[in-house]
């Protein structure tokens, strides 16, 4: 029977950037953003071994923070743009992680599914401008996405 686990990794030292830098034209209201990566795994076997695998391959304990569970890693965002590669699109990170996993002699767990998402947390007030972010950041040819209003 498979188990689901969700991890989100944020940068410890990177200050929120100006959201204008993500877009083709400036937005109103001086919005800022931070990025995270979210890993959704389906697995069977030893939970500790799986958790160790995730921490050793996906996480840098010096410069990053590790969040476990479904809840959003960062607080105070006006909205979150959650996006990732469509099934079948080339995902270099996923390929490298799966290859690494398959090269392990005794991983102690079976990785059945891995989904990698990027999240952009947008901070600031004013009218909802999330459609601008979707338009300029997501590419319908390779990405799927959702906007989470907090």
């Amino acid at each position, binding site marked *: 029977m498979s188990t689901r686990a969700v991890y989100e990794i944020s940068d*410890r030292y990177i*200050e929120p950037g100006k959201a204008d830098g993500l877009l083709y034209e400036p937005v109103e209201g001086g919005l800022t953003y931070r990025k995270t990566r979210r890993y959704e795994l389906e697995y069977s076997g030893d939970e500790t071994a799986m958790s160790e695998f995730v921490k050793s391959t996906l996480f*840098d304990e*010096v410069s990053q923070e590790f969040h476990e569970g479904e809840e959003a890693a960062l607080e105070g965002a006006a909205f979150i743009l959650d996006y990732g590669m469509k099934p079948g699109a080339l995902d*270099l990170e996923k390929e490298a992680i799966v*290859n*690494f996993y398959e090269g392990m002699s005794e991983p102690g767990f079976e990785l059945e599914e891995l989904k990698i998402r990027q999240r952009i947390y947008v901070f600031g007030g004013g009218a909802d401008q999330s459609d601008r972010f979707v338009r300029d950041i997501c590419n319908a040819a390779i990405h799927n996405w959702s906007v989470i209003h907090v």
Partner: protein
Amino acid sequence: MEERPCAILLKFPGTNCDAETARALETVGFEARIVPVSDLTINTLEDAALVVLSGGFSYGDYVKSGRLAKLVTQQKIADALREFRDNGGFLLGICNGFQILTELDLLPEASLVENTSGRYQCQWVTLENKAPESPFLSQLPETFEFPIAHAEGRLVTKTEEDAKALVENGFAALTYADPVNGSFQQIAALQDETGHVFGLMPHPERFLYKTDHYDPDWESDDKWGSGYYLFRSLYDSIS
């Protein structure tokens, strides 16, 4: 014919400073071999005296600089690299290579993250030589210049205290004379406790000749730039 020490340069997809690094190594006397990571095996290191991870953007810096190169290297030869070092081999990481060495835990615990400017920075910097006894720095003066070119060159540790300890304990081999990119304690290069593993963000291979300097009137008593003396120091230590 005199046998030259062999330097292996690992080339990942996106590594782009291997040719000029090989040229610098050949200039000081090494035999330089560029090895694509797809051809990499444990046997690759057999004849090597030096393994170099050159600058560039391995795997497009996707996810985090050096992260994917770390996974591939770890899978193919991680233990062999440690054995290579333990048996007296030397490891040099330049820019992206430095990022990969920190990811592989071959250097004291630190990480290289986005510059505080939030931008890619390409400029010349003044460096302070904090480890004149290092095999990599023994022929370099107290201060000298190298060019930098990076977006993720800000060296951080878990706390500022950890960075201070790196300086106090001699692991910070080079520091920036000015606060260039937000690095803790202005650290530009690290070495391990053996002195055989060395990583730096600046590019010595881009300052091989005096004429590489941005100032055509730059004073030097010979034809070489400061980068030459980093590679020359290493060559003399090895041979």
